[in-house]
């Protein structure tokens, strides 16, 4: 049976995480098709056609697909899902939004946020904020899976799939896009960055995040935050790392003024090298850190910026 991967994109560019999802599909094994649904997505479909291992791209264009509204996107995916053994999407806020609807429309369960493919029906996924890893087996005829991007190396770009258009379904007409406030940043995207520098409540306020930005810019790093820093209003929500925020697994993660509660660790403990800077030597973050520096961050950060 073939595998259907739902592309993530912003109507002009394919989101890189789509390639990580294709990599998971490759491990399952089978013909891989990618579905691109959006408003004028020809360039996205062309990008998707170049992903290694993809044999066909389905391009479905309609105004009501522009914002990936779950009601419409799930109806479209469900209209073709029975042709496939697996339907995969990234475990991003987009994938998490529409995929369970697809599963319910097909009357199957969903396996959320897989981190490993053991076989075509058996997968690993974290539970309890990553404090346990479950191996689960699905007996459903169609396996609906969301994929944690950081757990799979992105597929290459030497493919040349055919592109077909797929008829749009009618607008469900029960939801509409009202507006959005998207963060603009010149720094790398959190989930794809090689280095991430994150700040917590210890930063004290939003202005002090400047100290982190300076270090981040020397390292070409993305900047993240704990939930406490977001809740206190230091930084916007899209910077939150953790169980209920973004999952990152960079080469280097530097946690500054973050205590290391399990919900935060759930989002970063698969980083290759972890550095913690905290003035409290008892802080649990030191239990996962490869290099711990017990110091006042207001002294350590300027020094670090200079030393880089």
């Amino acid at each position, binding site marked *: 049976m073939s595998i259907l991967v739902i592309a993530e994109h912003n109507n002009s560019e394919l989101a890189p995480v789509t390639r990580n999802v294709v990599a998971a599909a490759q491990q399952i094994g089978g013909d891989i098709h990618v579905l691109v649904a959006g408003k004028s997505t020809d360039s996205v479909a062309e990008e998707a056609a170049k992903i290694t291992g993809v044999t066909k791209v389905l391009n479905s264009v309609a105004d009501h697909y522009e914002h990936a*509204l*779950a*009601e419409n996107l799930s109806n479209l995916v469900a209209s073709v899902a029975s042709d496939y053994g697996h339907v995969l999407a990234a475990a991003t*806020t*987009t994938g*998490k*939004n*529409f995929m*369970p*609807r*697809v*599963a*319910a429309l097909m009357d*199957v*369960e*969903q396996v*959320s946020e897989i981190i490993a493919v053991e076989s075509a029906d058996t997968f690993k996924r974290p*539970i*309890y*904020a990553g*404090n*346990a*890893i479950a*191996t*689960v*087996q*699905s*007996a*459903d005829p169609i396996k609906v899976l969301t994929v944690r991007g950081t757990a799979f190396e992105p597929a290459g770009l030497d493919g040349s799939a055919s592109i077909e258009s797929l008829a749009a379904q009618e607008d*469900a*007409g*029960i939801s*509409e*896009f009202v*507006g*959005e*406030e*998207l*963060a603009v940043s010149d720094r790398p995207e959190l989930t794809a960055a090689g*280095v991430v520098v994150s700040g917590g409540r210890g930063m004290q306020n939003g202005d002090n995040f400047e100290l982190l930005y300076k270090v981040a810019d020397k390292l070409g790093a993305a900047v993240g935050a704990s*939930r406490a820093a977001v809740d206190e209003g230091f930084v916007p*929500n*899209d910077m939150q790392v953790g169980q*209920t925020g*973004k999952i990152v697994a960079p*080469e*280097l993660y530097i946690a500054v003024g973050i205590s290391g509660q*399990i919900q935060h660790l759930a989002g970063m*403990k698969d980083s290759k090298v*972890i*550095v913690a800077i905290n003035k409290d030597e008892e802080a649990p973050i*030191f239990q996962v*850190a*490869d*290099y*711990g*520096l017990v110091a006042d961050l207001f002294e350590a950060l300027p*020094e670090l910026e200079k*030393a*880089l």
Partner: protein
Amino acid sequence: MKILVPVKRVVDYNVKVRVKADQSDVDLANVKMDINPFCDIAVEEAVRLKEQGVATEIVVVSIGEAKAEEQIRRAMAIGADRGILITTEAPASSLTVAKLLKAIVAEEEPGLVILGKQSIDTDNNQTGQMLGALTGMPQGTFASKVEVADNKVNVTREIDGGLQTVGLTLPAIVTTDLRLNEPRYVKLPDIMKAKRKPLDKKTPADYGVEEKRSVTTLNVAPPAEREAGITVSSVEELVEKLKNEAKVLS
């Protein structure tokens, strides 16, 4: 307008769970249980909508073990008016829960169903969306703001790139994110009062829903342990180690 709020009994979020020696599951014996934090936020949001005069009645439902009555009573102490407890033989899958909720939606005809975006045990993040598909209702997931006006609800959603607002036709589904509100503390007199609020006890069979599971757990293992790290004494030493030992800086 009536609001339906499903709540789940889960391990307290401060508990670091451990895996059983035979790796069949996590060990929940003698572990503190509580309402799922996101469900707590859902109850709070419903109560605020009632306080604002938007909602007239709040029905809370829990599906799981009989002890989940504690979580329903807690929701009643915050302000829910009545409860439905559906006891299952084993923890129900998200799809089964969504099917049971669909049956309750058909009976109660709520204007809004407010659920937590995920439960902190299975971390599935599925039930609200599945209920949406099964009932044909629109959904505003990961909500940080909910505004009801004229037969519509505007939901501001926390998405990876920032915030998105969607407008939904009622009846609709909302799933809560952490910043939607800060749940109030439960006061003792309210706990006493909650004990007298009506609670219906049911089983899945009462709703004609079969308890089944197509995804089975083969094994539950602890995550890979990280090797113990070292403490460095200065920024200088840190940078030196990152360059020469970890080789993550050039």
